[in-house]
């Protein structure tokens, strides 16, 4: 048989080879030169699960946890597996109707597909959890997932400890690359916010294999590439939780604040901003409801931290500083006397005064003599040492700055205010270049343009107690596992005031002790302890209406070896000696003696706690709000229903317009509860005519 076309065998073999070369070429292209396929495969197949570590615990000075974690449960559902669920029973247990159930299911399937688990009801209450847990067998496709939530075992320290909120897009934009994702929570206020990086710990990543419908198929490589979650570091604060509890109890029915500092360390012992609220209100699934209903629209502004977030005229407590500066500048000495006939007439219009007589520095402090300090302040400003009043005032301010006034102290809390130490330039703007000492004479008694935060005031008391030095007041003493971020470094720097000799301090201490023994603070004596104190009563007005005075009290004790410096302020409480001073005295006793002794002192606690000093204008607004709320009941009920639907929103997303007549628009705290000053000094500062003040 002749073989035809033998050569065609070659051609066919070439065709075969050609086909295989073409295939190999495409394989090279796909497998060796196209990175996108590997990426696409990873996107397909990996599910990256973030493992949230436990947040750090905050302990008080005696290692009692004041901000801890607890387990809460979410009801989670995989809709595609929930067919046989006993819907009626479930709805009854969750207190929802079947229409809501169906709507939620629809939404979940729409958002997250029907094969992936979604949260049906977040943060179940313990009763609800117990009831559901018993009946879970009736609800196929549903499961209870635990998650860690914050809890405040002592129910105190809301303003200090702060709360957490869900991240929003703005936050994510600002904190790119820090590992936050939509749906995460972050410390929004207080210590939770400042120490967020320490508390949050390190998130773990688990990689799972996922199939084409998004169902997890087990871990990738048995977790060889997973990273473990590292729990947040615990914080040890200087707070004494018993003192904090007592402080909050004493400040019930009042608007004001307390700051107590350990002068030796600068550690804050208690920090009360009244009115306060139970911080646990802001952890459960009713969080948003509470935030809106109880806190956000309360005219008393409970979300405002009044210890650092607002500033006031310090009142007569400031006189101690005027005395110290006067002595140190040599414009007065311990023989300098001022006679007061009931008012200071040096500037034309009389400036009223409670105590009449002739005073040296010590009794002037004890009796809080306006005339004495007005005269001293004038002498400081007219001091021949300085070429003009501008430089004299600048020198005065240098003292004030070294006392931590007019500047942010650097307390470890967000949105601290600076207060105001008016500069010569500031007065040029008001009075022109040739301002007179009489123009600003109100400053001498802590009124006028001078403003401080209460923490600054407490710090001044600590400086006087220490005789010229302080550590920046702070809440956190140490971080478990070391201060890796250097957040506590600034609290280890010893700040010194301008050089002031010992006898000046002794003189002021003597005067402040006199306050407690025979002066304005007589009713606030602490049995068996030498307390040095200074009262203050600050005139104020709100929208032109003159209100009751703010009551101030600053003190430290014991005089010989000061262990506590304290400042107390009650808004519109009237005379300082009846509210602020006794509160301070009880706290001092509690701290130094560890308990309150004597039945009359214990009764005093109850009496002070019951004392209702809510400013009348706030009461009026509260009443107005309550009636408004009644009128709006329908809308509120609707809103509440939405709140419980498990979709948590940050408080700032709440529409303020939903309550038509707001109590006071300028007072509404924005994002961080207190960017605006809540009280009037701002208005006072702006007024060009300085009123002559009476202070006691």
């Amino acid at each position: 048989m002749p073989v035809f076309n033998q050569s065609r065998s070659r051609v066919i073999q070439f065709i075969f080879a050609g086909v295989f070369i073409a295939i190999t070429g495409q394989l090279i292209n796909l497998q060796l030169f196209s990175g996108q396929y590997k990426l696409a495969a990873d996107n397909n197949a990996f599910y990256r699960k973030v493992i949230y570590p436990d947040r750090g615990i905050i302990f008080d000075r005696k290692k009692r946890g004041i901000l801890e974690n607890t387990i809460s449960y979410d009801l989670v559902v995989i809709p595609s597996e929930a067919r046989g669920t006993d819907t009626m029973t479930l709805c009854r247990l969750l207190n929802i109707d079947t229409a809501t159930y169906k709507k939620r299911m629809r939404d979940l399937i729409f958002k997250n597909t029907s094969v992936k688990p979604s949260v049906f009801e977040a943060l179940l209450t313990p009763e609800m959890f117990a009831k559901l847990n018993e009946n879970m067998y009736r609800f196929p496709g549903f499961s209870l997932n635990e998650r860690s939530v914050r809890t405040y075992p002592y129910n105190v320290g809301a303003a200090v400890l702060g709360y957490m909120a869900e991240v929003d897009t703005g936050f994510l934009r600002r904190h790119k690359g820090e590992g936050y994702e939509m749906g995460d929570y972050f410390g929004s206020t207080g210590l939770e916010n400042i120490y967020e990086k320490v508390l949050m710990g390190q998130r773990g990543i688990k990689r799972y294999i996922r199939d084409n419908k998004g169902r997890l198929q087990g871990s990738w490589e048995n977790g060889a590439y997973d990273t473990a979650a590292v729990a947040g570091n615990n914080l040890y604060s200087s707070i004494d939780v018993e003192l904090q509890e007592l402080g909050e109890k004493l400040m019930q029915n009042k608007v004001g604040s307390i700051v107590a500092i350990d002068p030796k360390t600068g550690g804050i012992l208690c920090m009360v901003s009244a009115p306060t609220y139970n911080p646990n209100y802001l952890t459960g699934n009713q969080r948003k409801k509470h935030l809106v209903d109880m806190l956000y629209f309360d005219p008393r502004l409970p979300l405002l931290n009044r210890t650092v977030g607002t500033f006031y005229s310090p009142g007569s407590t400031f006189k101690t500083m005027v005395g110290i500066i006067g002595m140190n500048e040599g414009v007065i000495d311990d023989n300098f006397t001022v006679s007061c006939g009931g008012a200071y007439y040096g500037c034309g219009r009389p400036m009223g005064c409670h105590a009449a007589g002739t005073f040296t520095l010590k009794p002037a402090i004890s009796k809080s003599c306006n005339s004495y300090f007005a005269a001293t302040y004038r002498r400081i400003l007219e001091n021949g040492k300085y070429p003009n009043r501008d430089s004299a005032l600048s020198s005065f301010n240098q003292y004030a700055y070294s006392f931590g006034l007019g500047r942010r102290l650097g307390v470890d809390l967000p949105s601290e205010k600076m207060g105001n130490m008016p500069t010569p330039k500031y007065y040029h703007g008001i009075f022109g270049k040739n301002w007179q000492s009489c123009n600003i004479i109100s400053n001498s008694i802590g009124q006028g343009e001078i403003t401080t935060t209460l923490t600054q005031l407490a710090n001044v008391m600590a400086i006087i107690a220490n005789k010229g030095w302080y550590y920046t007041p702070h809440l956190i003493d140490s971080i478990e596992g070391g201060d890796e971020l250097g957040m506590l470094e600034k609290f280890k720097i010893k700040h010194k005031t301008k050089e002031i000799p010992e006898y000046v301090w002794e003189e002021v201490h003597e005067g402040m002790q006199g306050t407690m023994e025979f002066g304005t603070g007589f009713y606030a004596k602490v049995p068996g302890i030498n307390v040095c104190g200074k009262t203050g009563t600050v005139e104020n007005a709100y929208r032109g209406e003159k209100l009751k005075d703010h009551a101030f009290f600053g003190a430290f004790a014991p005089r010989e070896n000061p262990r506590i410096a304290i400042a107390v302020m009650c808004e519109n409480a009237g005379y300082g000696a009846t509210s602020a001073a006794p509160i301070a005295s009880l706290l001092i006793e509690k701290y130094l003696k560890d308990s309150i002794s004597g039945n009359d002192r214990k009764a005093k606690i109850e009496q002070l706690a019951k004392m209702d000093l809510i400013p009348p204008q706030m009461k009026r607004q509260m009443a107005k709000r309550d009636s408004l709320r009644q009128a709006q009941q329908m809308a509120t009920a609707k809103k509440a229903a939405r709140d419980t639907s498990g979709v948590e929103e940050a408080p700032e997303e709440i529409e303020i317009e939903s309550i038509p007549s707001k109590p006071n628009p300028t007072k509404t705290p924005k994002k961080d509860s207190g960017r605006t000053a809540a009280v009037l000094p701002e208005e006072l500062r702006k007024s060009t005519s300085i009123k002559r003040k009476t202070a006691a």
Partner: protein
Amino acid sequence: MNRRNQNIVTQGVDYVVIWLYAILVAIGILCIFMVEYRPNTDWLASFLDGKTSYSKQLIFAGVCAIVATFILLTDSKLFTAFANLFYLLGILLMIATFAIGKNINGSKSWIPLAGGFNLQPAELCKIFVSLALAKYLSRQEIDFSKIRSQLVAGAIALAPAVLSILQHELGLALVYTSFVIAMYREGLPAQILIIGSSFGALVVATLILEPNVLAIILTIIAAVVIFVLRKQIKKKKGLLTMIITIWLVCVGVQRFVVPYIFNNVLECYQSTRIYSMVGKEYNCDDNKHAQDKSSSNKTVRKPDDYNVRQSKIAIGSGGFFGRGFLKGTQTRGKYVPAQSTDFIFTSLGEAFGFVGCLIFLIIYLFLLIRIVRIAERQRSTFSRVYAYSVASILLFHIAVNVSMTIGLFPIVGIPLPLVSYGGSSLLTFTVLIFILLRLDADRQMVLR
């Protein structure tokens, strides 16, 4: 003599092919195992259960081994004698599917057998066509240079293809075009191959380029050819007419025939698959079938290129060395549809990467070249034509299947020979190859 009698069956059998066959079947079972494997299940228990695809495939392989042994035990004369009868049987079976066919995956090309097994006659027909073609071309009186013989041979090859198209099995129908290679070896004019591949290139060019750009390019080519051949044209006027005719035909094809095929002949999903291969989107509104469907108020499922995209992702993610045995994420996540059958190559590509694919393809190529060698050493035309048919069928399957998984060819549902899961397919290729081995073993016997 005794010794010779003992080894009579294995005498002259080509062991290289048997080894390659065994290796490929083993790779196939391994690949199916990779696709089916789930880390948290006891694979041994499910293997012994016989419920999984890989254990079924192993059973099929066992059956195939028995069938192969029987084929090796028969006399090769049987195949020449019964070739035409087998062909007739195959055609009848295919026609029978229209009556008793079972609908599997939308094509009514299966005949249900006992025990849950189904038979696809179109698969078996490949064998019968190979035999019948070999029989026809080996007839003494046939002169294959004659057009008439070529047409008859073409009809033998394409008759089952027509039936397959009627059963909506385009992939299986296309396989029958591969006989053109065997026929080419036997003297089919090379022009047919050239014209065929030119037409293919023109279709691809039509898809890739804008119609006007392509028309201009074609015109330029024609002008250049006329310019180059101007002297010959002066001598021979017919040449000019021929060039102009070819140019006209090309433009006509590009302008009218190709759009007509895509819009009127092919289904919407087929056009989409072909368009997606070159990275373009096909507008189903132009498709006549889709229009018919939508006008009769049936919802037109919008097809996308999900399959080929996932397939390319799986293979591409393998990289150079692959992710490793049982570590392919795409395979584990079932991202590639039909992965144990038509897309089996993806599991290999993902697990063993470029190196694995290359080795795998070299094994195939080695098998093909080996079969061509076997074909060339045959003394009978019957055996040679048959061997070339086997090689052609294998090449077509491999080329189309692998090309479609890597996006070189539109998706048509044809399996990877010896590797893809499926009893029909494995049995068909086993029979094809072992008949060849039987014929080869007897190549010394007589001239047929």
